């Protein structure tokens, strides 16, 4: 186990200790003791930056080597970018939560334990090389996210949100596991690197597309892509540090990680490009439109996150096109991947800061509703500054980092329309148009977040608390992120070479051979279409923001009517539950006769079906013995008694007829030369008849519930069917003797080996005495059981004629 493994598992081990620490140290806020963990990890992962620029670091730890499941960890550019985000923002979030969550009124031990488990899970997802281990950590993120969303479990909405997030992400996770297993079947390996290396070889495999779709389902559910985005707005019931950490910066990017990671494998297929970019662009548009109609700041941010994730997803989809061009000099689609990675980083910074800002506003004013907020700029100037930077970066305004990545986004979209592949030339023009519209809406909601909250008139009568500037501890983490937004906005190349470049090379391994590939992000590109599009976004966006109150009611009323995925989810949950309940109530009637009908029906279908399908029906009567008159008469007697039993109207007749039939059968045994059987049959028959008489004395008369036997009822059909089936089976089986009977051995050895002349009895007690032993046991159990049932009455009810 290397240091890298320990680094991944460190938060997990810490989570084990947190409850102890919490109970021992009541005076200090537990967050202070947790804070060093992500900080140490952040510094540790920073130390990988110089190394990772040239090569990936691998460390392996055998877990289940026989099945090829090993805890193998690989640090390459992409993993490192994520690891830095997770630990860096994790540190800030822990710091923020110290001031956000009160020491006395919150269960901090739970909070930090869940958070640390999540951190381990997330690090495991991005660093694992083994698919099964990756899946393990993936589910751990789902579970810890479930726990964190439901942190205030006394609230109905929290529980609902947690359950919804769990259902959807675990559904996706299971789909992804299926995809991983298909990959394993195709490549015989669980190692991500080996599978990626085997990429071209399996691209024509029948499982290739199914595996791709399943893995994409996992990625889309986790990254809240349409139509699986519905869990994310409900996950906003979590405490704000959790929203900032999980649902903006890290966990929802796990799906993006998966898409980026599998790009070298799946991008050869046009399906991948189409699905990823189309789903991404729809999500982008849908999220941005929905964000403009929300009144809750966190809800706006949730939809904004969905929208931005769609943007990154689109870029990753477009980046897939780059694998189809060998020449690197004019490989413009690789720029889309650069933009994706860059925006992924940028989004984590500004969205983290925005969530923390919203948390501050909520914390200091007591509400997050933009209709009650306003004019906070004077009271909370620092928070306002942070919000300004965050929102303008999100809107894509210079000089912040969002501007740069949005420029690159537009460039890539314009570029994709020139692609001569997969019929993109025909429908590809839609991509930049939709993206542009979505950007306008992005601009609008960004402006709403900032201006509605911080400008205008203050409404103190609407605010639950008297607002004042937040403490330094709450301000510091978002301030650091906002500073990053500005710094990267001005000096994007600070992270371009050390962090982004290895990440892009990890996504597009064909680039790694080319040394001339380097990222240079500049402000000025000349008058490109992208710049014109940005200017258009700003102009139309300002116009739409100014007229927002006129068209907003139109959105809130009209759009939800025709497509409400959240409602569809609720309905499907309701109807699935109802359907399962009704099905159970319909099938499980509680009547034994119903279940017997099921069994007999299945028996007929299975046996008769097998006989017919395997063509086993054969009737060969050549080896039959001669039917004597006695046989015929006895059979006729049995038939008559049988019909009498079925149609008799009183129980006593049925019993007498049953006795008659039993005696006749014993005569059959006599004819078939089986004296022992005949003896036993007679005795048992007599005893049974007596027992029936005993039991039936207590029952009501038959005539009370008498009904005319219907000839075409289900019962009649089933009994006729079973009779026919058994008859056919017996007739078909009669002549299919494959082996000689072994009875000759018994005949030869009954006296020689076992000193007996009665062959039946010798078989029962000598050759196969074990059966007899356990049949004796059965009889013993039956008699003890009857005794117990009669004697043991735990209820007080006593019959009149009880013996005692």
């Amino acid at each position, binding site marked *: 186990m290397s240091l890298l493994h320990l680094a991944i598992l460190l938060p997990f081990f810490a989570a084990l200790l947190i409850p102890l620490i919490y109970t021992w140290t009541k005076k200090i806020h537990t967050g202070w003791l947790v804070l060093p963990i992500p900080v140490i990890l952040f510094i540790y992962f920073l130390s990988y930056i110089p190394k990772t620029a040239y090569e990936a670091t691998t460390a392996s730890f055998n877990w289940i080597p026989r099945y090829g499941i090993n805890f193998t960890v690989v640090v390459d550019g992409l993993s490192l970018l994520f690891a830095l985000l997770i630990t860096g923002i994790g540190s800030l979030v822990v710091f923020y939560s110290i001031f956000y969550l009160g020491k006395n009124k919150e269960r901090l031990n739970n909070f930090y334990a869940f958070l640390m488990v999540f951190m381990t899970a997330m690090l495991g997802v991005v660093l694992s090389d083994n698919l099964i281990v990756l899946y393990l950590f993936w589910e751990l993120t789902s579970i810890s996210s479930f726990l964190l969303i439901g942190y205030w479990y006394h609230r109905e909405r929290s529980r609902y949100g947690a359950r919804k997030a769990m259902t959807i992400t675990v559904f996706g996770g299971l789909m992804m596991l299926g995809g991983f297993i298909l990959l394993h079947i195709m490549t015989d390996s669980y190692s991500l690197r080996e599978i990626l290396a085997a990429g071209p070889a399996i691209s024509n495999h029948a499982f290739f597309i199914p595996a791709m779709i399943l893995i994409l389902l996992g990625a889309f559910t986790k990254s809240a892509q349409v139509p699986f985005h519905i869990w994310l707005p409900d996950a906003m019931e979590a405490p704000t540090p959790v929203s900032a950490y999980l649902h903006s910066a890290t966990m929802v990017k796990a799906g993006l990680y998966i898409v980026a990671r599998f790009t070298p494998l799946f991008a050869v297929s046009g399906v991948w490009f189409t699905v990823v970019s189309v789903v991404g662009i729809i999500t982008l548009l849908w999220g941005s439109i929905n964000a403009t109609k929300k009144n809750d700041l966190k809800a706006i941010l949730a939809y904004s996150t969905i929208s931005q994730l769609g943007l990154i997803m689109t870029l990753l989809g477009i980046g897939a096109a780059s694998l189809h061009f060998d020449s690197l000099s004019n490989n413009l689609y690789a720029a889309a991947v650069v933009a994706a990675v860059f925006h992924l980083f940028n989004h984590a910074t500004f969205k983290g800061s925005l969530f923390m800002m919203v948390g501050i506003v909520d914390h200091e004013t007591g509400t997050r509703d933009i209709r009650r907020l306003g004019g906070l700029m004077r009271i909370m100037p620092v928070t306002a500054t942070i919000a300004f930077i965050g929102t303008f970066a999100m809107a894509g305004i210079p000089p912040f980092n969002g501007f740069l990545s949005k420029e690159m986004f537009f460039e890539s979209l314009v570029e994709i329309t020139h692609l001569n592949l997969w019929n993109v030339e025909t429908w590809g023009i839609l991509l930049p148009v939709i993206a542009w519209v979505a950007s306008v809406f992005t601009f609008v909601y960004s402006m709403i977040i900032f201006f509605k909250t911080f400008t205008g008139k203050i409404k103190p009568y609407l605010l639950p608390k008297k607002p004042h500037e937040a403490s330094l501890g709450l301000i510091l983490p978002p301030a650091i992120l906002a500073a990053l937004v500005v710094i990267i906005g001005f000096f994007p190349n600070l992270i371009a070479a050390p962090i982004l470049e290895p990440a892009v090379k990890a996504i597009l391994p064909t680039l790694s051979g080319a040394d001339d590939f380097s990222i240079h992000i500049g402000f000025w590109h000349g008058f490109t279409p992208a710049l014109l599009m940005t200017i258009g976004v700003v102009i139309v966006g300002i116009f739409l923001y100014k007229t927002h109150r006129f068209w907003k009611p139109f959105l809130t009323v009209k759009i939800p009517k025709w497509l409400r995925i959240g409602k569809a989810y609720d309905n499907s949950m309701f109807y699935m539950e109802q359907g399962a309940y009704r099905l159970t109530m319909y099938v499980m009637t509680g009547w034994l006769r119903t279940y017997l009908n099921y069994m007999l029906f299945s028996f007929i279908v299975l046996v008769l079906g097998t006989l017919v399908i395997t063509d086993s029906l054969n009737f060969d009567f050549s080896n039959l013995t001669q039917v004597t008159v006695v046989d015929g*008469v006895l059979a006729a007697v049995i038939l008559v008694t049988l019909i009498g039993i079925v149609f008799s109207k009183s129980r006593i007749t049925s019993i007498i007829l049953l*006795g008659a039939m039993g005696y006749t059968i014993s005569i059959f045994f*006599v004819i078939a030369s089986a004296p022992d059987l005949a003896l036993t049959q007679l005795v048992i028959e007599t005893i049974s008849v007596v027992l029936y008489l005993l039991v039936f004395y207590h029952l009501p008369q038959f005539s009370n519930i008498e009904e005319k036997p219907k000839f075409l009822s289900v019962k009649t059909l089933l009994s006729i069917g079973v009779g026919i089936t058994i008859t056919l089976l017996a007739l078909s089986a009669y002549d299919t003797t494959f082996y000689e009977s072994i009875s000759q051995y018994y005949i030869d050895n009954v006296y020689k080996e076992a000193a007996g002349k009665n062959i039946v009895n010798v078989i029962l007690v000598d050759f196969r005495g074990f059966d007899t032993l356990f049949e004796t046991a059965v009889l013993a159990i039956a008699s003890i059981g009857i005794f117990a049932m009669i004697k043991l009455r735990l209820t007080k009810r006593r019959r009149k004629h009880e013996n005692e």
Partner: protein
Amino acid sequence: MIIKIALSIGLLLYSISTFLYLYRILKGPTTSDKVIALDSIGMNLVAIVAMLSMFYKTNAYLDVILLIALLAFIGTVSFSKFIEKGKVIDRERDN
């Protein structure tokens, strides 16, 4: 040979007789008729088994004959008791 023919005829007659008793079981107006018919079937069976064992030239079925006679008696007694008292086994009388 004569014995064989005689036995066959005997078996046939007893079979017919069994059938007639069976008719009585199915039809018999009272339960007592049915029980008597069942008892008689038992006796018929004694005869049939005896003739069969002669037919097969074996004495392995003599036990069966004895048993049928015994059981037919027990059966008839219990049926009769059931008809008369409504139950087969009496409980201990505690004065």
